[in-house]
């Protein structure tokens, strides 16, 4: 049991800290989503130049072959430096590793470098209006036409589609397959074509991080099938199961910063003496630290046993719950000031409602915990 960083980990952290100090991302552009995204894209280019864009990737593909703990350190330090996530985060965390696992040599050579440098942004075409948590129910069709596939259907919740060159697209290639997760194929789809229409979804925050994708005769060549025709479910699972635990550390640091700010503003108003306020803030402090500790336990479990322990299923649920409670408490304590349109607290309050839906709803996470971790019978 050792909760300190070893020599390699400390050296990694110190090198990164020095780099971040010398390469500050600068202030985030405010109020303009396109400018904000361009800022994150530029940030990723600088990370790539410094060799920091994908620390968890193997060295042969431009990464550093970082351990899970080093990867966690990377995201913690990024958060501590108040730097943004790299623009192509879905490419770095999902598309790249999935291509490394299933891709042909040509696919790896074609795609990995532009992912790393943010030259080509990636989005994820999985969810559909009637296939959210139940992904295998997806209906988008891909029909063979010569050496191409013709895609028809609709995707939704597609983050960064408006900036993307490529889409990780799962479509149904065999509608007669006996089970719904059979007959699916995973495509690398070029977004820059007539058959792809991108319609922004306006969120309750007023922003449009997500989009709807309308696919009407979009074409994908055979060469852009990933992992073989009919193998889409397995390839999609690689994407979904890919190690994203590093993100939890980034989000944890962000939550810590938000809570620190709330405590500071509460103190300025003289509210810390109120025992109810102190109790609620203490509870948030506890939850925030539990998240960090439990995330580190999860890393150790993966490093020791090759798979997450029971705690690994809990962190996303904990994070979304806690972030929602934190932002709600801010609104309660700070009052109209935290509810004024355009203020950071108002944004955080609204944005947090998405936390328990995006990337797996809390309800589904609880089902997964019950059935896969606790071994309870399949829900009725």
């Amino acid at each position, binding site marked *: 049991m050792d909760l300190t960083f070893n020599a390699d980990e400390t050296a990694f952290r110190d090198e990164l800290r020095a780099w971040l100090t010398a390469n500050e991302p600068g202030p985030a552009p405010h109020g303009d989503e396109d400018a904000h995204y361009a800022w994150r894209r530029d940030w990723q280019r600088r990370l790539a130049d410094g060799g920091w864009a994908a620390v968890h990737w193997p060295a042969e593909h431009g990464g550093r072959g970082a351990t899970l703990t080093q990867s966690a350190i990377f995201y913690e330090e990024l958060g501590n430096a108040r730097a943004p996530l790299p623009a192509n985060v879905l490419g770095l965390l999902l598309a790249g590793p999935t291509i490394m696992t299933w891709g042909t040599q040509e696919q790896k050579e074609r795609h990995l470098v532009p992912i790393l440098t943010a030259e080509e942004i990636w989005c994820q075409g999985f969810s559909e209006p009637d296939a959210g948590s139940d992904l295998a129910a997806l209906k988008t069709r891909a029909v063979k036409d010569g050496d191409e596939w013709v895609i028809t259907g609709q995707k939704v919740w597609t983050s960064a589609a408006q900036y993307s060159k490529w889409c990780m697209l799962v479509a149904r290639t065999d509608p007669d397959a006996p089970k719904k997760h059979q007959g699916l194929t995973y495509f690398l789809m070029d977004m820059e074509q007539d058959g792809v229409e991108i319609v922004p979804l306006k969120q309750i925050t007023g922003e449009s991080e997500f989009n709807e994708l309308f696919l009407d005769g979009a074409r994908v060549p055979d060469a852009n099938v990933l992992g073989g025709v009919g193998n889409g479910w397995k390839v999609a699972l690689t994407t979904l199961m890919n190690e994203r635990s590093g993100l939890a550390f980034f989000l944890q640091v962000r939550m810590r910063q938000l809570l620190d700010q709330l405590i500071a503003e509460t103190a300025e108003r003289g509210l810390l003496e109120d025992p109810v306020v*102190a109790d609620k803030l203490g509870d948030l402090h506890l939850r925030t630290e*539990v998240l960090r500790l439990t995330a580190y336990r999860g*890393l150790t479990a993966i490093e*020791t046993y090759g798979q997450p322990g029971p705690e690994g299923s809990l962190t996303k649920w904990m994070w979304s719950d806690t972030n929602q409670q934190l932002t709600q408490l801010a609104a309660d304590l700070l009052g109209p000031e935290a509810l004024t349109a355009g203020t950071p607290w108002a944004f955080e309050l609204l944005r947090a409602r998405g936390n328990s839906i995006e990337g797996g709803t809390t309800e589904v996470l609880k089902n997964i915990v019950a059935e896969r971790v606790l071994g309870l019978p399949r829900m009725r």
Partner: protein
Amino acid sequence: MHFDLTEDQKEIKRVAHELLAARSSWERVRAAAEGAEYDQALWDELCSLGWPGIAVAEEHGGQGLGAVELAVLLEELGYACAASPFLSIATAAAAIQACGSDAQRARWLPALASGEATAGIGTRELCADGVGAAVLVLLDGDGVRLLDAADADAAPLETIDPTRRYATIAAEAGAGEPLGGGAAGGSAGRARAAGPSGATDPAADRIRAAIAAEVVGVAQRALELTLAYVKERRQFGVPVGAFQAVQNRCAQMLLDTESARSTALYAAWAADAAPERVPEAAALAAAAAADAGRSVTASAIQAHGGIGFTWEADVHWLYKRAQLDAALLGGARRHRAALTALAAERIAAGRTTH
């Protein structure tokens, strides 16, 4: 970074688990609880194995291990809900070993490590194993005091938890001596800035970390009993564990148990390896354990349905133990307030965490 027990610690845990499964079955716990006595055969065996001195130096007759090993044993004894004075004696000994003066160590540790003498821990209002104890380790305001049996009157307090003996303590104000004698206690006993009541004393922090470790075992057992029951018990033609409301309850029990485990391990590790982190770590562990123990064991009763409300089922022993452990911890609220105060202090000083 390795946030898990070492192989040696896992081995201690495995041995303790198996021993207690064999020696401290529910029948034994029930017999002791209903007789309002400890399981003497069990205690004799634990003493012969040297458990009470797990965290006492070899020079004082102990095993020379640390706070994590103590936590490992406490978790297993909590899991067994064992009717023994282990928590009080081993924890008192560990606190005296870590924070006591040389004179205090020499005076108390050999007899505690061998189990010849007993100790009480807690407060004047609620002291586990206070009656008949040679020494009382009392969390008293913002410090910990050692009271010789002659300095105090311990009166039995019959609580809802019959698996352990409790007492109230009457003593003159200022009776006994500070554990560690203030600055004389070495690095671990150094004076800290006064903070929220009782939350900043290193000995108090160690004691709370130890109680929190026991709670992790109590919660783990309650969770396991519940999982076994809801997989077995059928209604409407299916196991009740197939119902989503029951499943969600179980998932919450896991989350609460694992949260308590993360913080209890952290506090035990910090106690020996990172003293500067102990005030926060112990407050985290105490706050998490006090609430998790209560909520997880309450959920266990609920998930057992009517049978869970009967004296015949065993979940109530865990619920009762969790309630008293939470009281020994001083409840969760004071620790949450302490966490807020620590964070506010850090933020005012312009520091980020870690």
